[in-house]
């Protein structure tokens, strides 16, 4: 294993998450979700979390574990249908839910990482999801204002890192991970492998290392995926 000053154990890494923090968690369903970091977070004591993630895992899997532990106070995402326990927790008043169109969620995260305060999107205009939101007519179209999203910590999944923390991803496990890497104060990336600097083709690097604070080696490996680059 290559030395990297950013390498930590999963438990050390998630100790950065404090009670009441807002945490971005990558993944589309469980694909591209940082399962090793989620396990470590479940074993920690951090509570009253606001989670920004497309889904809240599945029942008892991924973020679904933290939901069962009642550690999530608020969830911001676009598709919670894959975990019926989200609706149950919301119904019992244990969980606050903010539902956004998936493109609005993604763009709000990108804006957050890019120093943009918010944006007007046509998506959702005239629908229930625009109710109570600021809208504005520009030209002949109505737009909904969406504030940017940022977080205290981002937990992301990539495939390979180099020792500086440059990241490459694997197929559709990329999804929300690269944008979340830009939008949190402290970014923890779970990877299959760390290689020496210079071994990743600079043209292939999706997330430059300046976004990445901590690297953790995944114990949930991407099974059957070729090693290396």
């Amino acid at each position, binding site marked *: 294993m290559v030395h990297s000053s950013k390498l930590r154990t999963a438990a050390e890494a998630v100790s950065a998450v404090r009670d009441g923090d807002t945490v971005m968690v990558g993944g589309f369903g469980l694909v591209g979700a940082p399962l090793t970091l989620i396990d470590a977070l479940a074993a920690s004591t951090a509570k009253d979390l606001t989670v920004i993630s497309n889904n809240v895992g599945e029942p008892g899997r991924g973020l679904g574990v933290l939901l069962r532990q009642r550690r999530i106070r608020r969830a911001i995402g676009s*598709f919670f249908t894959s975990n019926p326990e989200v609706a149950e927790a919301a119904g019992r008043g244990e969980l606050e839910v903010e539902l956004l169109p*998936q493109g609005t969620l993604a763009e709000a995260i990108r804006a957050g990482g890019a120093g943009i305060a918010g944006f007007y999107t046509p998506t959702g205009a005239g629908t229930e999801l625009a109710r109570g939101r600021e809208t504005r007519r520009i030209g002949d179209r109505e737009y909904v204002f969406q504030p940017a999203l940022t977080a205290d910590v981002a937990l992301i999944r990539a495939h390979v890192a180099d020792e500086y923390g440059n990241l490459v991803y694997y197929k559709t496990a990329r999804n929300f991970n690269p944008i979340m890497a830009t939008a949190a104060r402290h970014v923890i990336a779970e990877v299959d492998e760390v290689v020496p600097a210079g071994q990743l083709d600079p043209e292939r690097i999706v997330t430059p290392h300046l976004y990445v604070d901590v690297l953790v080696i995944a114990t949930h490996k991407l099974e059957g995926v070729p090693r290396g680059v």
Partner: protein
Amino acid sequence: MSEDVRWRIARRAALELRPGDVVNLGVGIPTLVADCLPPGLTVFLHTENGMLGVGPSPAPGSEDPYLINAGKQPVTELPGASYFHSADSFAMIRGGHIDVAILGALQVDERGRVANWAVPGRSVLGVGGAMDLLTGARRVIVTMTHTGPGGEPKLVPECTYPITSVRPVDVVVTDLAVFRWVNREGLVLTEVAPGVTVDDVRARTAARFRVAQEIQPWQEVPGVA
């Protein structure tokens, strides 16, 4: 709903695609369209979880668990495929770079508006990419059974389910008929399925619609399934 009916709808919808179209397929009947493309037609399938160039389902045993479509089913990668993150994927959708979106629907109304993300009385906890696709795709094709499980019409005067967008649909393909939505005219019936009459369609449609001067013969991609 019988499999035959679902495939008939998919085979008809596939004929709406043009060479070179970038196409996003929703979950359900739209997904079947990938398996009944006309021979020789090249289209590029986009999936909102971050891929262009989606290939057919993998052979059993050769699935890659990290290569999935938006319905979380395993897919394959065609030559020329690319991957991108979620914000880029939705920039493609919202920004008008997707030629066609084929979507399922719970209701379509006389204004061409689609409801496909929520049912009143049930907790609404998922919207996914539906609103972005309907807002941003250049052409929107709805595929759905003509009536619901209880025989209730899905083409209605005004959606009673929450709408997905104020943008009108372009084409509606059901197991009975094809409608086109035309500005200032509303829904126009242009084709009826074999063995179906215009009166049959009328009897099972709650929305007002105009009948095209000439009803075109029903066409579909020859059955493979």
